């Protein structure tokens, strides 16, 4: 029997399929479609201290081999989250990650400070791509100092693993990953969506009300793989790779590039049962590659030079 488990710090994930933040709601939306206990992990929708409406519609649009989303981090706020979502997850076992969002370092801190005493939480994924006021509306994940700043503010507030979610738009993703490692993060997840635009020719308007959105799906897989590989060369932290994984093959490719586990997002939106299908395909494929465990496959890419 293959060993599909991996760890981040002391936290063990039973299999590499983790659902990405914002692609499976808070969990209860997916309950009618799959047995949540079979997942390797689940990361909730991004949470700010206060409830948030998100952007006006249209918020989604299909792109070649992908999709654009400009949901705008609609969220129920940390208090309702603690009251409603955490009790729901007490019925299921997979490692539960809270995606923490904020407009300034204080926001992130408030969310972690408020939620950390709840026993159900297993880890935090810090959403550094939110536009932040101190970076002039840009994302802290583009700046090593900002990344370090936010993570160092959070580190003393919890003993649980902190995972930094990285954006592909940093000048150097490896540099940001390194800064996260320096600041005490236990892992990194990459990549978040690419900034994209869709144009309605007839009306000369953008399709999305918000103008820009995040691109995800198979179209971004090659870029995501490249960045996972680069980060794997640079840091020793475990990596959750994501970007267009829709099959078991895709999943194992990310492991070869250096990821310890992966996140599935767009695939679930296309078919809510995709995560388990991908897991099954990967577990069936692994032995044919001559490996008994993910660990044997991890980071095994051999460049020519």
């Amino acid at each position: 029997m293959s060993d599909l488990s991996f760890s981040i710090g002391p936290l063990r994930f039973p299999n590499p399929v983790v659902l990405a933040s914002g692609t499976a709601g808070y969990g209860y939306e997916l309950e009618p479609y799959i047995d949540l206990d079979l997942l390797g992990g689940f990361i909730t929708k991004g949470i700010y201290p206060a409830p948030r409406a998100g952007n006006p519609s249209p918020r989604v649009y299909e792109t070649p081999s992908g999709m654009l989303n400009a949901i705008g981090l609609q969220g129920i706020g940390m208090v309702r989250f603690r009251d409603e979502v955490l009790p729901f997850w007490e019925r299921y076992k997979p490692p539960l990650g809270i995606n923490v969002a904020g407009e300034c370092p204080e926001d992130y801190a408030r969310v972690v400070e408020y939620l950390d005493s709840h026993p159900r939480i297993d880890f935090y994924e810090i959403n550094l791509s939110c536009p932040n006021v101190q970076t002039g509306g840009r994302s802290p994940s583009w700046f090593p100092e900002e990344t370090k700043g936010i993570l160092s503010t959070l580190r003393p507030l919890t003993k649980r693993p902190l995972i930094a979610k990285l954006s592909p738009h940093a000048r150097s993703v490896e540099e940001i990953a390194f800064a996260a490692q320096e600041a005490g993060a236990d892992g990194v997840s990459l990549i978040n969506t690419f900034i994209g635009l869709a144009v309605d020719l007839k009306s000369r308007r953008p399709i999305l009300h918000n103008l820009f959105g995040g691109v995800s799906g198979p179209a971004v897989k090659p870029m995501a793989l490249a960045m996972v590989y680069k980060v794997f060369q640079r840091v020793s932290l475990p990596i959750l790779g994501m970007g267009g994984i829709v099959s078991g093959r895709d999943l194992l490719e990310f492991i070869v590039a250096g990821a310890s586990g992966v996140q599935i997002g767009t695939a679930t939106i296309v078919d809510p049962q995709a995560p388990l299908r991908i897991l099954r395909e990967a577990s069936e494929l692994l032995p044919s590659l001559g490996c008994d465990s993910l660990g044997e496959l991890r980071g095994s890419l051999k460049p020519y030079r």
Partner: protein
Amino acid sequence: MTGNNFSSKMETMDKKGYTPLEIVDKREWREDFFSLFFHSPLLTSSLRSGHFLMVRDPDAPTLLSRPFSMGRLFHDEGIFELFFQVVGKGTESMARKRVGDTLSVLGPLGNPFPLEKPGRVLLIAGGRGISPFLSALPVLAESKRDYSLLYGAKTARTLLFRPFLADFPVSYRTDDGSFGQRGLVVDGLSREVDLVFACGPEKMLERVALFYKDLPTEVYLSLEERMGCGTGICYGCARKVRTDRGVEMVRVCEEGPVFEASRVVWDE
């Protein structure tokens, strides 16, 4: 528990999922309207007027599923009709499908029209909005209630299903007067009704809501919004609706697509 012993659990019958269905019949109407027919006694018996389906073509270049309203339900044969107009890449590829091809279908999704509520019913359909009422009309006819359909479109060519509709109380309207009365659907609204169900362009729905605003009539609207997943997990189709908490962004696929008109917040 390692991640391996799940194959049996995955196919549990109590979980919903996409089912592959074969196209058993196809009709090409005028003006880019098409119908595809599928055989599924399970779906045909569980679909209600106002529900929608997410449909995906695994061979298509398009990634996301598309939401579709179903048309007529043929209970004896266990066949349901998928009725649509070609408006983009997804629908275009659907229109090229042939009898015998397979599509993945998920449904029923969303909340249907509350047809069981008592009172005199008025159905209002604008253009493509005729779709959900094709399954409602037989139900209403059987209930022997006081009901009628107001169906409007730009011109006679875009008024469809007339032979089917001949058995029901329908009054037609066209913008150009080429069939039925000349004028907009909203010009023909009656106050003498208790229950209104409307489906059509947003502007039409807004005017219907405004017309009945201060009257005791209960009005239900089927809203449309660009969707991502259709299953309520991506929050892509949310729009402003009044809830107990105040005005919130509510998912059209999950809490809708049918909403009580007074709760809908209209854009300026």
